[in-house]
């Protein structure tokens, strides 16, 4: 397997003999290998620690979803479109969880045209309700890569220089119908510093390879639904910022939350600016967030004030992105037999039963497999290290 020459693409290598992965032990049971595979699955996080690299924290991402005829294919259950939309809801949730001050817009393409499903916005609810409604769309015709990228580009080129401009294309068809030369568009995208990444659902397409290579994005083709989910999770993390992106001081407002109850004498009901788009009812509410510059009211943060243009956030939103700036190192794996010390996980106080324990390089405490996963995925700080009181 190692000596074969010049294997540039994974599909050229063919399937390595997959039945050899499973090995039987002396009694003929597969239990040990199955446990091994499950254990490796738990640990499959690719720790792409970029090190001390500037990250693009404020992201403007457009997701282009291909809704052409090939999306009715049933290789993903129940069909590709439903599966993709469900994973997109998960992606939108995770994206706003990890990047609270960023924005997403959704574009769909079919019948050789492209249209915007939702505009660039920082509120996840709007996108999720649009995605839920989109399950009923008919998949017809061919997608148009040129038109969808053009549509995304028209909005992204007006975005300020310090934000990262990205497009993620979920491309299922093997063809694209473009009104003019796509290579010119690729040059324009490169000039505007827009990074395009593609997730292919069928097979590798050469124009996507060139597109992603030129603009600095990534191109992957999915194997199955789990792999699709993993690839989407990969795009949730902020990418390294390109060297030419500008850094600037952004003026932001931190509004106070006014909670008023009906019994409060001074509180008056007022209209909220965020309900201007909804036609469902008058939307009079008592409390809310008041913009410090123009006193317009909003019900949720983060939002860009429609009246004065000030970005309104709250301090926890910024704090949520801090763990990207101070990433945690991976723990060292050590087999259980070699580990001296009490056989208890420092975090959950459970007994250490798995075949390896994980040691923090700073404080040398041992953790079990589930706690290690929890610490690196969700908590982002070692429970024993934060007892040392020197970190801020």
């Amino acid at each position, binding site marked *: 397997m190692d000596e074969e020459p010049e294997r540039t693409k994974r599909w050229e290598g063919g399937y390595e003999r997959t039945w050899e992965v499973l090995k039987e032990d002396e009694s003929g049971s597969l239990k040990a290998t199955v446990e091994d595979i499950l254990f490796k699955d738990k640990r499959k996080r690719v720790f792409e620690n970029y090190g001390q690299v*500037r990250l693009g924290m404020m992201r403007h991402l457009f997701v282009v979803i291909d809704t052409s005829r090939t999306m009715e294919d049933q290789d993903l259950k129940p069909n590709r479109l439903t599966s993709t939309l469900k994973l997109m809801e998960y992606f939108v949730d995770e994206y706003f969880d990890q990047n609270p001050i960023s924005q997403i817009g959704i574009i769909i393409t079919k019948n050789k045209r492209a249209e915007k499903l939702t505009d660039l916005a920082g509120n996840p609810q709007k996108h999720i309700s649009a995605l839920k409604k989109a399950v009923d769309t008919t998949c017809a015709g061919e997608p148009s890569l040129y038109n969808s990228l053009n549509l995304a580009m028209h909005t992204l080129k007006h975005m300020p220089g310090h934000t990262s401009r990205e497009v993620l294309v979920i491309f299922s068809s093997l063809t694209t119908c473009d009104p003019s030369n796509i290579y010119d568009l690729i040059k324009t995208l490169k000039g505007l510093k827009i990074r395009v990444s593609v997730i292919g659902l069928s097979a590798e397409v050469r124009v996507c390879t060139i597109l992603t290579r030129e603009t600095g994005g990534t191109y992957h083709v999915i194997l199955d639904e789990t792999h699709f989910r993993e690839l989407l999770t990969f795009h949730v993390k902020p990418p390294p910022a390109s060297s030419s992106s500008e850094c*600037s001081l952004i003026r*932001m*407002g*931190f509004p106070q939350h006014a909670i008023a109850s009906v019994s409060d004498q001074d509180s008056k009901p007022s209209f909220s600016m965020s309900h201007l788009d909804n036609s469902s009812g008058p939307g009079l509410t008592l409390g809310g967030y008041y913009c410090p510059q123009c006193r317009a009211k909003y019900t949720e943060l983060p939002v860009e004030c429609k009246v004065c243009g000030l970005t309104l956030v709250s301090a926890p939103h*910024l704090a949520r992105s801090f763990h990207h700036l101070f990433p945690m190192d991976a723990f060292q794996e050590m087999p259980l037999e070699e580990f001296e010390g009490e056989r208890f996980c420092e975090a959950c*106080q459970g007994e250490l039963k798995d075949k390896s324990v994980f040691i923090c390089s700073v404080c040398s405490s041992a953790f079990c497999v589930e706690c290690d996963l*929890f610490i690196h995925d969700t908590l982002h700080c070692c429970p024993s290290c934060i007892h040392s009181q020197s970190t801020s």
Partner: protein
Amino acid sequence: MASEDEVSLLVVVVDVNPIWWGQQAQREPEFTLSKCLDSVMVMGNSHLVMNRTNKLAIIASHCQESHFLYPSKHWKAGDAAGDDAVSSSRDGKYEVLAVTNDQISEEVRNLMARTEVKGHQTDTLLAGSLAKALCSGQEMKSRILVIKAAEDCALQYMNFMNVIFAAQKNSIVIDACVLATDSGLLQQACDITGGLYLKIPQKSALAQYLLWVFLPDANQRSQLVLPPPVHVDYRAACFCHRNLIEIGYVCSVCLSIFCNFSPICTTCETAFKIPLPQMVKPKKKKLKPAT
């Protein structure tokens, strides 16, 4: 009402800062650490009795470590010997409760006896205890109750926020019962995770407040009239003066907040592009060719 098989875990994090409790013993001798722990034990017993499948964990948050008072590792080994359990329920109490209370009192005695407070470490390690509480409540539905005595420690802000977001992501509710001074960090934690924050007016009535406000779990709270939510101050503090500001400038690279515009960010030392006012070029009028 929760279904019969649902395991519900309550983790109580008790602040046992010896400096604060030592001063408290001199201020008000009728409310000491032992009285506080008695109230916690009453609350723990009540929780265990509410439902057969309820579980309890108690963590003591000290200046140097966070220690699990219950369930205790050392007692796990001794559980096999069932003789001790029979003798501990002298007053006819349900055995599980008697064993629990004994473990808690034994562990807290050991903890306070063996730890020595060194000069500069006077702040309670609350963020660390909360992190351990989160790790222990992963497989089941859980909630955390924090009983806070001493003041906030500003150094722990970032770790605290990480813990709060991890709790919110896993739908773990953090409630706070504050004995003395208001804590901004815990107010934010309760607001973000959807828990209850209460500053107790009279410390000697701790047991009453715990049973009234904090014993019912999340599904039952909608049917009770509980203390109203407090106003949480979410304004950010600027990095240069630590003032609370309403409008500020945020560095796009490191997200530090400043109250005034400055050409260089002090945290990450990036030079900023200063937006200059646009030069309006005078429009050149096209001269009509003379016909």
